[in-house]
């Protein structure tokens, strides 16, 4: 990592108000995103993956949530310091995001041509017809068949996979530096999923983008990510280059996640389910957040929260575990 990171997140803590009190949904997140790198955020639903992405986008609903602490550095600026207007100008232009639900993420009463062109209208100083032509080009780029005829169609006239392509077209219209993809393939059929993943990887290369890819599916992550950060209960518990992580899962939670991937070389009887549940953010345990569900738990785990530390002999593999990574063992 000689080059300066494109995006650098330090100590990010995002809180939500529940019953009049602020509780952290994401706590002390640290990570960096290099140019043209794909970082995958992995974890069960509710672990704070999406909150992290929305915090970067400045889209945490103001009534109920806030970025309480931390820096999000991007293009020399700290994003939480920016005002609404500056943030709006950044969104969709320099940083873009695509969402999980292609069926509901497009506006049902606006044509897709309009919705794609709209991004360009707000971020580039171009005329309506120019924007439309550019929208057409980008829709062709994401391989919408006979795009020209379909510009004036409405979202309900497209299939789920095609809608997700439209979403991708919208996100890429301004050639952003960073793309945040929040479970972009989860809602799609398996074959469509593969097509969309290939498309994303291809476009990322072509545009030289960096990508944060959010998923709960390690199988998908293995095919697309350069580096993986495993999240649990609002924290990164382990992070490593993708090969390293799959070779040497260290945190007991990562291990458990690996074991719960269905694989052809195992029978379903061996499929593993992690016992217990993610603690609610209003009742986080004192020490390690995974301790209540952990098989390797020791006394210290329930008293003190472990730090995210590099494993011996590596500079790129970190884990947050007293037993496996810290000096406690």
């Amino acid at each position: 990592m000689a080059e300066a990171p494109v995006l650098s997140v330090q100590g990010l803590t995002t809180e939500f108000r529940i019953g009049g009190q602020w509780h952290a949904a994401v706590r002390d997140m640290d990570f960096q995103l290099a140019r043209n790198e794909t970082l995958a955020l992995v974890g069960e639903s509710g672990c704070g993956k999406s909150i992290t992405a929305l915090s970067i986008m400045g889209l945490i609903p103001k009534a109920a949530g806030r970025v309480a602490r931390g820096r999000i550095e991007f293009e020399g600026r700290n994003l939480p310091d920016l005002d609404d207007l500056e943030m709006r100008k950044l969104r969709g232009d320099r940083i873009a995001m695509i969402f999980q639900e292609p069926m509901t993420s497009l506006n049902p009463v606006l044509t897709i041509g309009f919705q794609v062109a709209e991004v360009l209208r707000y971020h580039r100083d171009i005329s309506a017809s120019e924007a439309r032509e550019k929208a057409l080009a980008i829709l062709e780029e994401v391989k919408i068949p006979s795009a020209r005829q379909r510009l004036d169609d409405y979202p309900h006239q497209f299939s789920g996979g095609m809608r997700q392509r439209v979403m991708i077209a919208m996100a890429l219209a301004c050639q952003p530096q960073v793309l945040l993809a929040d479970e972009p393939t989860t809602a799609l059929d398996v074959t469509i999923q593969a097509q969309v993943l290939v498309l994303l990887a291809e476009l990322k290369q072509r545009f030289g983008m960096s990508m944060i890819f959010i998923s709960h599916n390690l199988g998908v992550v293995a095919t697309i990510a350069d580096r993986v950060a495993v999240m649990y209960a609002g924290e990164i518990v382990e992070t490593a280059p993708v090969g390293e992580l799959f070779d040497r899962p260290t945190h007991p939670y990562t291990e458990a996640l690996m074991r719960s991937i269905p694989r052809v070389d195992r029978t379903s009887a061996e499929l593993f389910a992690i016992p217990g549940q993610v603690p609610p953010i209003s009742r986080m345990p004192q020490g390690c957040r995974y301790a209540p569900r952990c098989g390797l738990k020791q006394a210290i785990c329930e008293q003190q929260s472990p730090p995210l530390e590099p494993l011996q002999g590596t500079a790129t593999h970190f884990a947050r575990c007293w037993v496996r990574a810290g000096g406690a063992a």
Partner: protein
Amino acid sequence: MLRFLIKRLLFAVPTLLAVLTVVFVVARIMPGDPAQVIMGDQASAEAIQALRARLGLDRPLWVQYFEFMGGALTGNWGSSMVTGRAVLGEVLNVLPFTIELTFVSVLVGAIIGVPLGVWSALHRNDTIDYVTRIGSLLGLSFPAFVMAIMLLLVFAIQLRWLPVISSGGDGSLADRAKHLVLPAANLGIIMAAYITRVTRSSMLEVLGEDYIRTAHAKGVPSMAVVWRHSLRNALIPVVTVVGLYLGILIGNSVLTEIVFNRPGLGKLIVGALTQRDYTMLQGLMVVYTFIIVVTNLLTDLTYGFIDPRVKYQ
């Protein structure tokens, strides 16, 4: 589109026939012989019999029924049992007043109600929202005639800005408008109260939708998110409610026409009811049914205008 219209109008025919049948039956089981009512207690039996024959009341019921249905459908609605004037003519005379009144009040209601509902939703749980919600609840608590009387008291009697009685005048456009202000404001304010509430709740729902988050993620300015991305979606349920509200609006227009002494269907129907004017009543029922059918059709057309997912087939 044209096929859809024709099909919808054809669908309305059975409803129209059913309502007409009900009207006929209801009119015949009303207590009291209409001839007796018209002639009064002093009339001789012969005179009443003669009138019955003239009104066709002495013929078998089924003959009367088919004559009534045929007449209703061909526009031959007979003449008023009380005034003797043609029912259709009487109705057509006052229909423009009622249509003008209801149309303007829907407009007033939408112009006040939609922005207020949006504003309230955007300031959810703020003082603004609270005041708007209480205000609109108060607005729809007003019986139409109560608000009409209040408006009359304040603007016509106390301030003398506007005429007390809405009929009459010299017939010029300005004069007609002046006579329309208070009645339309009356219906419009109550309508606005309904529209504000529906717009607010439907807007709140839309603001929570995924595509609104997408719009923000695209960097669309907040104003455009509200007016272009949210409002059109939020208006779909509003159209439904405005359509359903028609029944209340017609009832309220009757009351308004009475308070402001304004010509219209309302005054006609109250007169027909108190005087047992069956033919007039039948004609009015046909008109009301027709208005309802047409409004439902308009509502459906509006859906298509707002929501591209609606197809006319």
